[in-house]
Structures are given as structure tokens and as C-alpha cells.
């Protein structure tokens, strides 16, 4: 670029002009984006997601896609606004992982420090160097490249430190060793004592390096002990940026950056504030991400967490031994989980021993744990019916006076949830699980719905009960994630097929036959909130059954769009378009329709899982089981008749706001009848009195007719607040609806941010730590000569007064009979019948 091209009044670094003026070759493989950050010049295209290439790694030839879908830290595919996956180029590290890491615990031939597969690669540490040989316009060329950011190319030959080509392996090993030794010289403690889980030390050990050949720098960057949870030792920081990406990219807290330059460069919190005085929310992600001892959990914090968890186990009357981090790291399945995470969640894994006949988990119960099978055999019982907890009139005198009680119900009448005797499978169809199946009970953790089966030990066995947050950590590792995805899909379909709504007219025997016909044909599809499943006028190609979540059905009428209905789990849709293509007789029935097209638009309201049946399979099913046809036609005609009648009304379902506000998910809304409510605030006062002076409801919110939906936990069917808690302090257990937040909440505020309705609040509570005797004691500090407790933030939400007796105080204390707990659907019914 000539200097003449830049006018004098232009800034030295004209970002606007950069995009046009920088050519791909100016900075090798990289260029700068508008923020001046180094980025790859080449961008993956959607086409490359389907294109393959071959390369050789350590003598093993493999075929990989040129690009893979970009995923977030939990392995969810990131889609663009049109719903198509955003592609990213396949790197050498991706290819090596695919080729050599088949099972959890398998070693990757490429060591890494700054890269983890759940984080975007930045290629700063250069420990993942490999020798890559590829064809270039100037002939065959070998280079040492960082594998975490280097894309694969056709015919590429890659050698790692473990390559069978000894000379190549030695070259790579020498280069990597230099990098590691330089890092060791400055960042490993001089006394050689490293904490367990130090990855720099582990890499050095793997490369056979005992001691660095270099002198340590004289520059000192100091320590920061201001946080009550994490100690920062800048001396050990290798500036790999994992903490920064964990904080900013995984948790979106945007607290960690960098300050200083040269040897004085270090991580910084906010504007280089001490960690304890910054806006850090203490979620622990930075320490969990740190590969060295730069960010460590303080021992008092770990001990306090373990003490609290032990108390919790004791209080719940649960048996089992806590499995320590040191022991867990030895199991292959957990080897991908950072040691510090296991330490951070000191009692997140419990070993349980079961005798034959012991029940591991019960259908209908809410759960927040999964079970890794270590030994034994387990039988799975499915009743195929989902339970629910409802408020129903109480019996006796108070029932006569309008009192309510909470009961467990399932479709078809009252039932005891989790009834083992409700198994609906024949002897020849017993579902047996053992060690080969790896895990059990994971579905409730992944979809936050109640457990879908009862599991009973058939002989003595042993399981590791793991909390939801450990499962989330497993999902960050692609091999573990594949195992979890596979079992989830298989089990989701298995439990649902014989209970499909279209099979209602079949006998039990035919239902099983029909389910067996669909077993390999049905597919499980996940749909993001707001995503359109199909549009009105599209070609009808599938039939769908909702497994989880809610779907909105709407129809366009001119410019206006009318909501016709919303469907919940267990409902099917999409059959009308398919039925209208089934020959003459069917065409007669649907003569007003354009054959084979959709009559309405269907979109997901929340996270939806659908069982998808291909149109051809659906038609074949109707051929094999003709008794399905008439009921289907009747139902479809009824839907069309209703739609036609609704067209004459402005809005058929007076529930746009109901859907917009997510009330369809609510299982226990606090609703105030404003005609009765005298605004005396007894509900709020009673709530505060019950919960140590902190109210968990605000008598303000949306109004529906004469009802006010107060701001209080709604006990959503799919509670978003449960997602991502770093210590699994928020969960739902047993057969009741309440969301529990345990005392070991670390106050990071993630659940509060996740709740779309603002019903989780952060409050200050006296901080407690374990003393020398292992007892929890309040921590005090002296301010202006006064001894005051140290305040720690903790999340609070309505627990439906489960901690008292399960009768919500707000309803109990209302003197005017104006406060109610009801489901969203009941509220809709009430407002529509006013």
C-alpha cells in the first residue's frame, strides 16, 4: 500500500478502508477484521459442509468434511438467522480428534494448552504444533503449524509428536518442547510443586521434560487474593486466554481482559481492578478453564462447598459415598472434565450401591441427576403416561369451604406417580441396561422434564450418580457428547412410538406392531424457540408428533396472521397435507385443499423435540393399518371445519399475549383476583416472614382480564433457569413442582439472567465458611470498628413453601380469598369464560 493512497487527514489505522485494501496474502493465512483482530481470511461456505477431503495423520488416512457446523460450548449447532448451520473450517486438531479419540479417555496425539474443543481456537500457545505437508502452487511444502487453527486440505500429510515417522515426530517434539520449556521457565512454580490438574506440567511430563533449560524471567506480575473464592497467581499465568474466553464467550460475563505489555502482560478484571472488587460474579468458569495454577479455587471455598453438599445429602436422607476429584479423574468418562471443575463441585458425584429390586429412579419424578453404570444390570419400566401435579379441591370441611390440596395425576384419572406396576411392556420386550449402555437417567437432566421411566436393579450393582452440571461438562467433549446424544435419541423414540396419538384407534397388539414398523423410520428432531417447522403452502413431506415443548399453529389470512391453536407434548400435526394426497377417496374429502400442501404454519414456541415420520412411511402405515384412516379423516375434517369457522372471527384463540408471555409453560402461576384483592400486601408480608425477611414475590405483573399474574416463580414445564448452573444449586426434585435453590449457590446470577420472567432475584446473605471443626460458621469483618457479617449474594426464588409444608404462604395468608395458584391453561380458561 503506497503512502500516497492515504490522505493526510485519515487516521493512521483506517479500519473502514481495511476490508477492501487488505488482500488475503498480506498477512499469510490471516487478516484483520474491522476491530483490528487477527482473523482467518478464508471463510467456510455452506457447500463445504457437504464436501469431503482425505488427509493422513500419523500414517492413518482419513476422510473428513471440509467444514463442520460451528457449535457453542455445549455442542449445540449455531444457526444463522435463516436456520442454516454456520460453517467453520475443519482444523487438523478436529481431524486428529476424530481419528484417534474414539472413546472417552483416549489420548489425542496432539497436546494442547490454549485450546479446548468447546472454545473458539486462537492459536496463541503453539503447543499443538504439528508438521503439515501439503501441495502448494510452489510445490510440496512442509511446515510446522498450530493444529488448532490450521485448516485441513486435500492430500495433507500430518505428523504429530506420536507419529510413526520417527524423524518427523522428533522434529515436532523438539519444536513443541522448546515452547513448553519456555513456558515452564516462567510459569511453573520454582519449587516444582504443582497443584493437581496443572496441564502445563502434564504436557511437560508427556514430552519427557523434567526441567526447563531456560532461566526464569526477572519480571514479577504478582498475585491477587482479593476474591473470596478464587486466588489469582499472575506468575503462573501463561496468557493462553482460556479464562478470557470462558468468561466472555461461554458465560458472556465480559469481565476478563488483558493489561500491560511485554513481560508485564497479564489478565485483568474490568479496568484492571482486583478480582474481588471487579464486576466478577464468581461463576468459577475462569478457574475451571485455567490450565495452570494461575486461577485456583481457595481451599476454604472448596471445603465449605463440600460441607454444604454433605449437609444437603444428609438432610435429604440420601445414602452413598462422595467420589472425590482425585478418584474421578481416573475414570475414562470423566477424564475430559477439568480437574478443577471436579474439585469445584466436590460432591457432585456420589457412588451408590444397589441390591436386586432397588429402585434407582422413578417415572414422573423430577430429577437433576444421571447415573453412570459401573456394575450390575437394570431393568427399565415404561408406563407411557406422563404425570402432572395439580391443585384440586381438598376433602372434608375445608374442601367444602373451597380449600385446595396438591395431588399427583396422570391422564385418565388419579394415580400415584412413579408406579412401578404401570409397566406396559411384554416379557419379551424387557429393556435391560448394563455397563455397555454407559449411562441411565440422563434424559431428565437434558430436557428438564420429569423422568420418563422407572429403573430397577435386577442384580447387585453400582452406579455413579452425577449432577446435571457434570453432564453439561461431559457435553463439552465431543466423544462424550456423541454417546449422550445417541442414547438420548434412542431412548426418546423407544418410549414414545407405541403411544403416538394416531394409534388411539388400534388395539394394544396392533399398537405394538405399528410402533415396531416405525422403529427405524421415525426420527427425533430438535427445534429452537421461534423456529418455523413448516409454512402454510409448503409441500407436505412429514408427519410430526410433539415429544417436548409447545408448537404454535397459525394461518395467514390476507396480511393478518391468526393463531389457531397451540399444541403441547403428545399431540400430532401435519397429517392433513399428507392425507390429501392419498388417492381419489381422500381427495374427495379434502376437495377444497391443494393436495399435498400445508394448510397452516407451525412454529416452535420454546425448545421443541419432535418425532418426525416421513410422508411415504406415514402413507405406508395407513396402508398396513387401514383402521387408522377413518379416525384420522374425521379428526382432520374437524380441524378444517374449526379453522373455517374461526376465519369469521378476528382471532380464534384469544391468547396472543398468553403465548407471548410464555404462560402456556406455567404450572403454578400466582394469580390475584383484583376484584377481591384489597392491596393489603399480606401475601408479600407472609412470603417475607416465611423466608427470612426476603420476599420471593412482587405484587406486580401482567393483567389478564381481572387477574394479575404476580411476579413469582411459575414452575415452568421447561424451566430455563436450570440451564447451566455451575454448581447445580438450582434444581427440581421428587414429584413436586418447586424450583429449589440450595444453600451452596455461589451467587453467579446465571439463573436470574436465564429466567425470562424476572422471577429469580439475587439477595445478600451472611457468608458462611467451615471452621477447624468442620462446622459452618458465619464469617465476620470489621467495618468502622463494628463487627459485621460478610455478605454473599445468593439467588432466591419461590419454592412454593416446600421448605415449610408445601402450602404457598401467599395463598395461605390472603384474607380475601384473592390469591390462587393455577396453571397457565386454567388462567386462559378462566379469562375466556369471563
Amino acid at each position, binding site marked *: 500500500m503506497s503512502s500516497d493512497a492515504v490522505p493526510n487527514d485519515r487516521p493512521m489505522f483506517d479500519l473502514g478502508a481495511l476490508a477492501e485494501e487488505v488482500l488475503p496474502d498480506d498477512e499469510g493465512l490471516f487478516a484483520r477484521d474491522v476491530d483490528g483482530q487477527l482473523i482467518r481470511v478464508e471463510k467456510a461456505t455452506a457447500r463445504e459442509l457437504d464436501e469431503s477431503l482425505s488427509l493422513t495423520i500419523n500414517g492413518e488416512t482419513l476422510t473428513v468434511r471440509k467444514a463442520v457446523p460451528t457449535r457453542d460450548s455445549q455442542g449445540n449447532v449455531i444457526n444463522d438467522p435463516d436456520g442454516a448451520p454456520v460453517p467453520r473450517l475443519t482444523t487438523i486438531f478436529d481431524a486428529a480428534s476424530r481419528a484417534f479419540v474414539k472413546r472417552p479417555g483416549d489420548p489425542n496425539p496432539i497436546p494442547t494448552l490454549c485450546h479446548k474443543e468447546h472454545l473458539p481456537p486462537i492459536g496463541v500457545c503453539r503447543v499443538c504444533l504439528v508438521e503439515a505437508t501439503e501441495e502448494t502452487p510452489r510445490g510440496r511444502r512442509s511446515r510446522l503449524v498450530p493444529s488448532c487453527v490450521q485448516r485441513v486440505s486435500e492430500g495433507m500429510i500430518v505428523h504429530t509428536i506420536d507419529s510413526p515417522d520417527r524423524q518427523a515426530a522428533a522434529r515436532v517434539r523438539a519444536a513443541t518442547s522448546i515452547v513448553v520449556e519456555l513456558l515452564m521457565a516462567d510459569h511453573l512454580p520454582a519449587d516444582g510443586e504443582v497443584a493437581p490438574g496443572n496441564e502445563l506440567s502434564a504436557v511437560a511430563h508427556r514430552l519427557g521434560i523434567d526441567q526447563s533449560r531456560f532461566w526464569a524471567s526477572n519480571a514479577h506480575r504478582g498475585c491477587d487474593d482479593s476474591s473470596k473464592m478464587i486466588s489469582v497467581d499472575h506468575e503462573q499465568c501463561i496468557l493462553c486466554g482460556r479464562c478470557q474466553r470462558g468468561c466472555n464467550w461461554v458465560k458472556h460475563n465480559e469481565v476478563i481482559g488483558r493489561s500491560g505489555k511485554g513481560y508485564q502482560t497479564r489478565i485483568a478484571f474490568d479496568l484492571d481492578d482486583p478480582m474481588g472488587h471487579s464486576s466478577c460474579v464468581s461463576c468459577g468458569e475462569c478457574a475451571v478453564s485455567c490450565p495452570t495454577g494461575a486461577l485456583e479455587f481457595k481451599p476454604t471455598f472448596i471445603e465449605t462447598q463440600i460441607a454444604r453438599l454433605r449437609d444437603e445429602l444428609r438432610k435429604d436422607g440420601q445414602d452413598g459415598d462422595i467420589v472425590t476429584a482425585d478418584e474421578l479423574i481416573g475414570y475414562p468418562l470423566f477424564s475430559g472434565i477439568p480437574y478443577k471443575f471436579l474439585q469445584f463441585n466436590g460432591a457432585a458425584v456420589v457412588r451408590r450401591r444397589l441390591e436386586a429390586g432397588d429402585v434407582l429412579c422413578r417415572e414422573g419424578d423430577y430429577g437433576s441427576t444421571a447415573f453412570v453404570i459401573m456394575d450390575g444390570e437394570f431393568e427399565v419400566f415404561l408406563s407411557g403416561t406422563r404425570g402432572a401435579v395439580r391443585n384440586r379441591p381438598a376433602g372434608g370441611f375445608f374442601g*367444602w369451604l*373451597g380449600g385446595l390440596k396438591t395431588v399427583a395425576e396422570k391422564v385418565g384419572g388419579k394415580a400415584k406417580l412413579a408406579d412401578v406396576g404401570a409397566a406396559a411392556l411384554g416379557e419379551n420386550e424387557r429393556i435391560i441396561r448394563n455397563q455397555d449402555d454407559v449411562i441411565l437417567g440422563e434424559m431428565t437432566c437434558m430436557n428438564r422434564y420429569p423422568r420418563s421411566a422407572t429403573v430397577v436393579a435386577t442384580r447387585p450393582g453400582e452406579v455413579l450418580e452425577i449432577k446435571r452440571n457434570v453432564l453439561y461438562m461431559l457435553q463439552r467433549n465431543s466423544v462424550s457428547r456423541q454417546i449422550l446424544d445417541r442414547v438420548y435419541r434412542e431412548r426418546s423414540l423407544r418410549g414414545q412410538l407405541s403411544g403416538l396419538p394416531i394409534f388411539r384407534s388400534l388395539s394394544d397388539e396392533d399398537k405394538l406392531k405399528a410402533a415396531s414398523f416405525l422403529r427405524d423410520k421415525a426420527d427425533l428432531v430438535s427445534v429452537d424457540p421461534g423456529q418455523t417447522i413448516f409454512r402454510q403452502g409448503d409441500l407436505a413431506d412429514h408427519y410430526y408428533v410433539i415429544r417436548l415443548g409447545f408448537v404454535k399453529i397459525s394461518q395467514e389470512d390476507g396480511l393478518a396472521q391468526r393463531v389457531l391453536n397451540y399444541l403441547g407434548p403428545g399431540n400430532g400435526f401435519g397429517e392433513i397435507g399428507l392425507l390429501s394426497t392419498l388417492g381419489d377417496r381422500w381427495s374427495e374429502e379434502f376437495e377444497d385443499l391443494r393436495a399435498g400442501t400445508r394448510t397452516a404454519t407451525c412454529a416452535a414456541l420454546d425448545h421443541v423435540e419432535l418425532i418426525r415420520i416421513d410422508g411415504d412411511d406415514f402413507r405406508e402405515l395407513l396402508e398396513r393399518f387401514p383402521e387408522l384412516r377413518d379416525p384420522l379423516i374425521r379428526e382432520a375434517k374437524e380441524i378444517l371445519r374449526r379453522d373455517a369457522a374461526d376465519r369469521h372471527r378476528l382471532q380464534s384463540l384469544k391468547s396472543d399475549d398468553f403465548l407471548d408471555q410464555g404462560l402456556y409453560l406455567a404450572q403454578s402461576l400466582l394469580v390475584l383476583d383484583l376484584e377481591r384483592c384489597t392491596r393489603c400486601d399480606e401475601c408479600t408480608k407472609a412470603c417475607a416472614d416465611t423466608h427470612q425477611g426476603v420476599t420471593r414475590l412482587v405484587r406486580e405483573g401482567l393483567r389478564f382480564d381481572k387477574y394479575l399474574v404476580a411476579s413469582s416463580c411459575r414452575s415452568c414445564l421447561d424451566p430455563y433457569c436450570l440451564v447451566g448452573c455451575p454448581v447445580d444449586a438450582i434444581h427440581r426434585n421428587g414429584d413436586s413442582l418447586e424450583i429449589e435453590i440450595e444453600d451452596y449457590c455461589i451467587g453467579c446470577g446465571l439463573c436470574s439472567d436465564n429466567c425470562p420472567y424476572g422471577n429469580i432475584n439475587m439477595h445478600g446473605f451472611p457468608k458462611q465458611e467451615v471452621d477447624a471443626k468442620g462446622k459452618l460458621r458465619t464469617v465476620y469483618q470489621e467495618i468502622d470498628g463494628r463487627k459485621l457479617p460478610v455478605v454473599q449474594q445468593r439467588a432466591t426464588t419461590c419454592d412454593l413453601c416446600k421448605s*415449610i409444608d408445601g402450602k404457598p404462604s401467599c395463598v395461605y395468608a390472603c384474607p380475601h380469598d384473592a390469591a390462587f395458584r393455577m396453571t397457565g391453561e386454567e388462567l386462559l380458561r378462566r379469562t375466556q369464560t369471563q
Partner: protein
Amino acid sequence: MIVSRGQLKLHLGFAIPVAVLTAVCMTLYFRQSLAAGTWVGGGSWSGLLCGVIAGAIILSEMLLWPRKALRRFRLIPTKYWMAAHLWMGLASLPLAIVHCGFHLGGWLPATLLILLVLTVLSGVYGLAVQNVLPRWMLRHLPRETIYNQIQFVSDQAVRDARQLLTRACGRNVASIETAVADPELLPAGAVVVGAVRQAGKTRGKTLQTRHVAEGRFDRETLWSAFDQIEPYLREGDRVESPVRQSYGADRWFRRLREACHEESQPVIDVLQDLCDQRREFDLQRRVHRLLHTWLPVHIGLSVAVTILLGIHVWTALKFW
């Protein structure tokens, strides 16, 4: 406590037993009086029975106080307490009157009876306003908020209005230094504004990000108008303002509309809406007082009745 058809079960559960008890006691009293040929006094067995029951009712009514203090304990749902309080309280008056033998007697029983009548009347007044005002508020105060949050919501409305004006016509020249100090305004070149929105039966505030526009000819007019209404938005009817009364506000805003650019009309709509909201808050404040100020009077009278009842019992037993 609402007495309506929807709560018939709740009320009948207490009203019928109380009515039966009262009727039985009074029947006994009238029979004895008929037999005696005169209204028998509190010393007669039927008069005493009525007095004892009325006294017991008064004491049990006072149990609402400790119940309130022990809210966190499960001492039967409060609605049952209130229904019982209502019907038993009403029954205590006729029982007390027949206990007196339809005479006021000395100063102590006379004071006691008058206080009891006042207590019951204050309770009946409370019952009446509780049955009327919540419905009235529901219909006429759609923007009502939590009573002790009125000031907070009003301050928020002022902030919203200020941001709206910034969006519509640029920053206030008079207070430009303050605006520069606001980090949210300048770097982003946009403001977040809140407005009341009604969709179907739902009403609430929505937030929108809008870009700041500078330099329209009506900037000074709008800011000057805002300076005039700001004290009212903050303090309500405690300050004099041209928008304090609804009809005056209509006239004032009409003149403002005439003086401003057409593009500023939506902003003026929002300003007028915020003034309407403030007027509703003032009304809510007054209605809230009507709805709740009877209670301290009722409680004061109840305490006085209970104390005098104790003295009455003591003197009656002493001079039996």
C-alpha cells in the same frame, strides 16, 4: 373481605352456625323476658349467657392480632379467620345489646356498648369499601402500581420522558452538560425509551432503542414544556401544575401540539399519557387511603373495647 356469590360456601360455613347460635341465645332471652314481663338484665341467666358469648366473641376476634404476628405458622388459612371474624363480629353486637337488657346502664357499660357499636360500624364500613373499591380500582385505575412504589415509578416516568425528548428533538440545551455526563447517551447515539403499551387485555411497559436526533425547531418548546410538567410527574397533586386536572391538561397539551412539529406529536402523546398515569397514581393514593385508613380506627376501637370489657367483667364479678 368480599361477600359475593363466588364465596357463598366460605361465608355460609360461618354465617349459618353464627346465626343459629345468635338466634338460639336471643330466643332464650326473649322467652325469659316474656316470662318476667320486662327486659331482663345481664344478671339473668339468659342475659349472662348472651354476655358471656359476646365477650368470648370479642376476645376471639382479637386473636387476629397474634395470628398476624405469627403469619409464618400455619394457623388455619387466613380467609377462614376473616370469614369467622366478620360473622362473629356482627353477631356480637345484638348479643351485647340483649345482654344490657336494652339499657345503657352506668358510664362503664354505656361506654363499652357505644365503643362496641362504633367498632362494628367501622368494621362494616371496612367491609363495604373492600367490596366496592377494588372493583372500582380495577375498572378505573388500569395503571395502578404498588402503593409504596408510586414515587419510584414516577421517577422512572420522568427518566423515560427525558429520554423520549432527547430522541425526538435532541438534548436540552440548558442542561447539556448533564447529558454529556450520561455515558448511555452519547457514544451509542441512541436512547432506550419506555412507553405504556396495551395489547389485548395486557398492559405494560415496553422498552425500545431509538436513535438520537438533533436540532429541530421545536426543541426549546418541548423542553420548556417538559420543565413545566416535570414537578407534577414527580410529586403529583402536591404541586401546582397546568396538567394537574384532566380538562386543564387537555387544553395545555392541545396548545403544545399546535406549537410543535408534526413529528413531535407521538412524543407529546407519551408525555400526556405519563401525566394521565400520574393523575391515576394520585387517585390511587386517595383511594388507597379510603381503603385502608379505617383499619387503624377499627383496631383502636377494638383494643379499647377489649380493655373496657376486661374492666366490665372484673367490676361485674366484684359487685355480683
